[in-house]
C-alpha cells in the first residue's frame, strides 16, 4: 500500500501527540518550571473564572467581592438570558452563517485546489498567485467598498451579505492548504486511475477527497471558527438586531446593560460556552486545524 500520509498528517501528530502519549519523567523535576507554569496559567484562567463566577453574583456583591465564590448563587442571571429568545437567536444566526460558510468554502475551494494540484491548463500559475494574493491583506482594508458592493447587490442586512464575502476571503488560505495536501498524495494514484479510464472529476470525488479528510476537516474548522467569531463584517453588513450573530448580540447586550456587570458577565459566559465545549470535545482537530497555516508544502 502506498504511503498516503501528508505533511498535514505529520502536523496533526506533532501538535497533538501529547494528548495520547504517556507521561514521562519525574513530575517534580523542576519546581521552578511548575511555578512559572502555574503563574502563567493563573493569569490565563483567572479572568475566565471571574467572568463565570461573576455571572452568579448580584451587583452589590460583585462590587465588593470580585474574587470569592458568591454568597448566594444567583442562577436567575443566567436563567433570565436562557429563557429569553435573544441569546438563542444570536446563536442560531451564527450557526446558520457559519454552516453555509463552511459548506461553500469546501465546495468552492476543494475543486479549485484539485485543479491547481493535479491539472495543467493555460494560466495555472497566474491564477494560483492571483488567489494566494488574498493571503496578504485582511477584510478591513476593503470593508467600505465591500459594504457598497453588498449594498448594490441587494445583500445588505441579509446573511448572504456575510456568507459570500467570508467564503471569498477564506478562499486563499483554503485553496493553499488543500492544494498542498492534494499534491502530497502520491501522483501514482492519479496516474493509475487515469490509465484505468477514470476521468478527472471521478478521481477528485472518489480518490482525492476521501484520502484528504484530515485537511478538509482542518479547512472546515478554520472557516467555522473565523465565521463564528467574525465581528467587523456583520457589524457593517447588518442593521436588524434579530439577524445579529452572537458577537454583535453580545456587544448589543453589553450596551444595554452597561453597568450591570453581573448580567453582562453571565451573557459573556453563555456565549463563550459553546466555543469552549466545542474545543474540549474536539481538541485534537481544533488545535491541528487552527495551526494548519504553519504547514508548508
Amino acid at each position, binding site marked *: 500500500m502506498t504511503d498516503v500520509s501528508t505533511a498535514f498528517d505529520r502536523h496533526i501528530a506533532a501538535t497533538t501527540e501529547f*494528548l495520547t502519549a504517556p507521561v514521562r519523567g519525574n513530575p517534580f523535576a523542576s519546581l521552578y518550571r511548575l511555578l512559572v507554569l502555574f503563574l*502563567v496559567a493563573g493569569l490565563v484562567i483567572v479572568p475566565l473564572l471571574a467572568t463565570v463566577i461573576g455571572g452568579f453574583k448580584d451587583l452589590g456583591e460583585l462590587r465588593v467581592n470580585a474574587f470569592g465564590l458568591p454568597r448566594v448563587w444567583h442562577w436567575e442571571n443566567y436563567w433570565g438570558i436562557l429563557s429569553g429568545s435573544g441569546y438563542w437567536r444570536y446563536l442560531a444566526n451564527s450557526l446558520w452563517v457559519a454552516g453555509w460558510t463552511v459548506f461553500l468554502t469546501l465546495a468552492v475551494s476543494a*475543486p479549485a485546489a484539485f485543479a491547481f494540484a493535479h491539472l495543467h*491548463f493555460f494560466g495555472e500559475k497566474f491564477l494560483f498567485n492571483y488567489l494566494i494574493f488574498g493571503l496578504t491583506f485582511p477584510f478591513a482594508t476593503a*470593508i*467600505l467598498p465591500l459594504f457598497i458592493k453588498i449594498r448594490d447587490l441587494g445583500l445588505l442586512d441579509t446573511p448572504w451579505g456575510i456568507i459570500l464575502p467570508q467564503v471569498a476571503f477564506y478562499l486563499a488560505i483554503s485553496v493553499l492548504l488543500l492544494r498542498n495536501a492534494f499534491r502530497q498524495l502520491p501522483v501514482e494514484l492519479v496516474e493509475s486511475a487515469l490509465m484505468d479510464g477514470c476521468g478527472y472529476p471521478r478521481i477528485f470525488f472518489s480518490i482525492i477527497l476521501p484520502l484528504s479528510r484530515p485537511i478538509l476537516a482542518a479547512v472546515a474548522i478554520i472557516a467555522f471558527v473565523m465565521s463564528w467569531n467574525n465581528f467587523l463584517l456583520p457589524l457593517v453588513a447588518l442593521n436588524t438586531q434579530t439577524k445579529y450573530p452572537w*458577537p454583535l448580540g453580545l456587544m448589543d447586550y453589553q450596551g444595554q446593560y452597561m453597568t450591570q456587570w453581573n448580567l453582562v458577565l453571565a451573557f459573556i459566559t453563555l456565549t*463563550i460556552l459553546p*466555543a469552549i465545549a466545542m474545543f474540549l470535545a474536539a481538541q485534537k482537530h481544533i488545535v491541528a486545524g487552527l495551526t494548519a497555516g504553519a504547514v508548508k508544502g
Partner: protein
Amino acid sequence: MAATAITLASARRASGVHSGWVTAAIFLPPAIALFTVFVILPIGEAAWYGFFNWNGLGLPTNFVGLGNFVQLFANKVFTRALINNGLIILISLLVQLPLALGVAVLLADRRFGAVTFRMIFFLPYILADVAAGLIWRYMFDGDYGLVSQVATAFGFAPVYLLADTHYAFAAVLIVIVWKYFGFHMMLYIAGMQNIDRYLYEAAAIDGANAWQRFRFVTIPGLASMIRLSIFFSLIGSLQVFDVIRAMTFDGGPLNTTHTMVSFLYIFGITRMRVGFGSAVGIVIFVLCVVVAFSYKRLFMRDD
C-alpha cells in the same frame, strides 16, 4: 485496428491534456468569480474611491486627488492609531513571542501537566476577540473589576485603567498578549517535534548546558517556525479591531486607543465618508503588502 484506437483513446486520456483542461474550466470559475467580486474588486475600488470625496450615494464625482491622504496623515488621531499599531507589533515581538517560546520550551516534553497547561494556554485563542475584550473590560473596570479590587485591597485608590489616557492602550496590549501567545506557543511546540532528538543527546554528550542546548539546538531548529510566527504577528497586528471595539468602544478615552482599523470604522464607516475611509483602507493594504513581500524576500527565501 480497433485495439489501436482504444489504446490511442486511453493514451490521450492518460496524458490528461484535453479532459484536464475541461475539468479545470468547470472546477475553477466559482472560486475565481467569488474571489474577484468580493476581494479583488473591492480592493481596486478602494484605490479608486480613495481619491474622491464621496458619501456612498450616486457616483463618486468630487475628485480630491491626494486630499484624503493629506488629511489622513495630518490627523492626530490617525497618527496615534499608527503609533498604537506599532506598539502592538512591538509588544508582540518583545513580549508575546518570547513568552510563547519560553512556555513552549517548558511544555515541549511530555512531562507532568504538559497536556493540561498547553490546553489552558491555547484556550484564549479560541475565544472571539469581542468576548476576550469584554472580559478584560470587566477586569479593568474601576468599580467592579478585579484589578481595581486588588489595588484597593492593598490600600491603593481604585484604578480606572481604561479611562486613563496614558494607560488605556497598555491595557489593550495586555489583552492582545493574553489572547494570542497560546497560538504561537502551539506553533513552537509543533516545530520542536521536528527537531531531531539525537541533536540534544549529542549536545549533552559534548557538555552543552541547558541554555546552550536551547541556544544552539532549539533556536536554529525552530528558525523557520519563529519566522512564520513573526509574520503572523505582523499581519495580525495590522488588523486589530474587535478588541478595541469591546474594550473602549469608540477608541476612547480621547481617541487614544484607536488602531488603524478602528479609526477606519469610526471616522470612515459610521460617518459614511467612503473616500476618506477607503484611503485608510489603502494605507493598511499597502502596509500589509509591504510587510508580506519584504518579509518573504528578506527572511523566507530559503523556506
